[in-house]
C-alpha cells in the first residue's frame, strides 16, 4: 500500500532564462519512503529539486507539500516548512569548521552547546568521520566526508522531507557503500527522502518508489521493486536513461 503523498508535483514547468527545462512534471513523494528520481544528464532532475526549493521558480503547475502550495514561496520559507536540501555540489561552507556547518544548519541552535546532543550522537554513529573532524575546516575534508557533512546538515534537526541530489557523484565505491548504509538507517527511521541518483546500484538499494525523467518530463513512475524485477521495463528505460549508469 502506498503511503499518503507528502509532496506532489503536477504539471510543473520551469524556465531558466530563455530555456524551457521542465515540461509539466508530475509525480508524488509518499511520506516515510525513499523516492528516487532517475534519468540521463540534462533530463531535468536537478532542476526539479531546485524548483521544489524555490531556487528556480516554477513558471506553471502546482507544488504541494502536506497539501500546502509551495509555488511562489521564497526558498527560506520553503526550507522552514521542514524541507532540507543537499545540492549536487554539496553546498558545504568550506571556510567554516564541521561544527560551524552543523550549528548553521540547526536553526534552533545559536551555538554548539545548544545542539540536540542525542541527535548529534546518532549522527556521529551514522557518519563517524564527522566526530573525528568536528573542529576541522570543512574545506579540508575529502569528497566523501564533505558529502557526509552535507547529509548531516540535512538531518541535524528533524525534517519532514530531505532532497538529495546525486550523493554518489564522484565518490569511490567504498564511500558510496558508507552512504548507502547511512541512507538505509534514515530509511529505517521512516525519513522521507527524494533522491536524485544516476548510480542504479545505489538507487535500487534505497528506493521504494522511482520516477524516471527524460526531456523535462516524468516518463515512468512506480515502485522500485517493479523496475528491479521487470527486465522488460528496465530494458525499455535503460535505453532511455539507465544504460549509461549501470
Amino acid at each position, binding site marked *: 500500500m502506498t503511503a499518503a503523498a507528502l509532496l506532489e508535483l503536477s504539471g510543473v514547468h520551469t524556465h531558466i532564462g530563455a530555456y524551457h527545462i521542465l515540461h509539466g512534471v508530475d509525480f508524488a513523494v509518499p511520506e516515510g519512503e525513499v523516492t528516487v528520481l532517475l534519468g540521463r544528464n540534462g533530463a531535468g532532475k536537478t532542476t526539479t529539486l531546485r524548483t521544489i526549493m524555490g531556487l528556480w521558480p516554477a513558471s506553471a503547475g502546482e507544488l504541494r507539500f502536506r497539501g500546502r502550495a509551495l509555488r511562489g514561496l521564497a*526558498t527560506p520559507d520553503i526550507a522552514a516548512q521542514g524541507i532540507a536540501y543537499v545540492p549536487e555540489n554539496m553546498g558545504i561552507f568550506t571556510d567554516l569548521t564541521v561544527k560551524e556547518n552543523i550549528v*548553521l544548519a540547526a536553526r534552533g541552535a545559536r551555538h554548539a552547546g545548544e545542539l540536540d546532543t542525542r541527535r548529534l550522537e546518532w549522527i556521529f554513529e551514522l557518519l563517524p568521520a564527522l566526530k573525528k573532524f568536528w573542529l576541522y575546516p570543512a574545506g579540508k575534508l575529502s569528497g566523501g566526508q564533505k558529502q557526509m557533512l552535507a547529509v548531516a546538515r540535512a538531518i541535524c534537526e528533524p525534517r519532514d522531507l530531505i532532497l538529495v541530489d546525486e550523493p554518489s557523484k564522484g565518490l569511490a565505491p567504498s564511500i558510496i557503500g558508507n552512504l548507502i548504509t547511512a541512507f538505509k538507517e534514515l530509511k529505517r527511521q521512516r525519513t522521507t527522502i527524494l533522491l536524485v541518483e544516476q548510480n542504479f546500484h545505489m538507487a535500487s538499494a534505497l528506493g521504494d518508489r522511482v520516477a524516471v525523467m527524460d526531456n523535462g518530463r516524468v516518463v515512468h513512475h512506480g515502485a522500485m521493486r517493479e523496475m528491479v524485477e521487470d527486465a522488460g521495463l528496465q530494458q525499455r528505460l535503460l535505453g532511455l536513461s539507465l544504460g549509461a549508469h549501470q
Partner: protein
Amino acid sequence: MIVSTASTGTAAVIPKAQFDWRPMALLAALMLAALPLVGSGSTWLTLTVAGLAMGFIIFVISSGLTLVFGLMDVLNFGHGVFIALGAFVATSVMGGMSAFSAGGGWQSLVAIFCAMLAAMAVAGAVGWAFERLIVRPVYGLHLKQILITMGGMIVGEEMIKVIWGPLQIALPLPELLRGALVIGDAAIEKYRLLASAIGALVFVALVYTLNRTKIGLLIRAGVQDREMVESLGYRIRRLFVGVFVAGSALAGLGGVLWGLYQQSVTPQIGSQVNVLIFIVIIIGGLGSTLGCFVGALLVGLVANYTGFVAPKVALFSNIALMVAILLWRPQGLYPVTNR
C-alpha cells in the same frame, strides 16, 4: 556532553588546520626592515606608531566595504560618500557641542564620542536607503553596480554640498588630544593612540561577531554560498541589508576618525580615499576581515616609512604594495574560499 567530548578528546588527535601566520610575519618583517632604513630608533618608533594608527583608521573605513563586497558581491564605489557623511555630521555635532569640544577635559571626549555615534547613525540610515534605492536593483550586475554606485556617490557629494556648503570645514582636535606623548626621543601623537584604540576595538568586535555568533556564521557562510544559506532557511536579503547598514555605519565612524586625522573635511573626502579602500580590500583578500585588517596596517606603515625614507616613492607606495602582494598571493593575503 557530546559536543565537548568531540571538541576535546578527538580534536587533540586530529591536527587542526594551521593558522596562516605569514601575512602577520610580513607585517613584523616590514617593521623590522624599516628600522635600519630609518636609522634612528626614536624616529622609527614615531613612524611605526603613526603608521599603525593610520592603518587602524584605514581599517575602520575599509571594513564595511569588505563585508559588503564579500557577502553581497556588490562593488560599492559609493562607499566613500558614507565616509564624507560621517565626517560632516561630526563637524555639526562637535560644532553644536562646542562648549564640550572646546574644553580641555573629558567633556571633549564626550563630544567626540557623541559625534561618532551620530555619524554612525546617520551613515547607517543613509546606507539603508542607498541599499534599497540604488544597490538592490543591480544585485549580480557588476558593471551596473560600478556605474550606479559611482553616480550615487556623486549625488551624495552634491547633497553634502547643499547641506554643509562646498568649502572645506575645519574639524579641529580638542585640546585634550592635541600634541604628543614623548617617550625618550619618540613623539607619539595622542590622537593616534585614540584612533588606534578605536580601530582595535572595531577589529575585536568584528572578529568576535564573525567567529563567535550565529550572525557571524551566517555572514561568513553567505560570503561563500548565499544560495545554500537560503536553502537552510535563513533570509539572506535581511542579512544583506543589515550588513550594508553596518558597513555604512563603520564608514561613517571611519569618516570621523579620518576627518579628525586631517583636522578638516571636504565633500570630496570620500572619493579621495575610495581608491585607498579598494587597494586595502584587494590586498587583504575580498571579503576577508582579517585580510582587510592586515592590509590596512601594511598600507599605513608603508605610507609612513616611505614618506620619511623616500618621499617620492610614497607617491605610489600603495600601488607598489598591492602589486607586490598580488604577485605573492594573487587572491590577497587571506583569500576567502569560493571567491
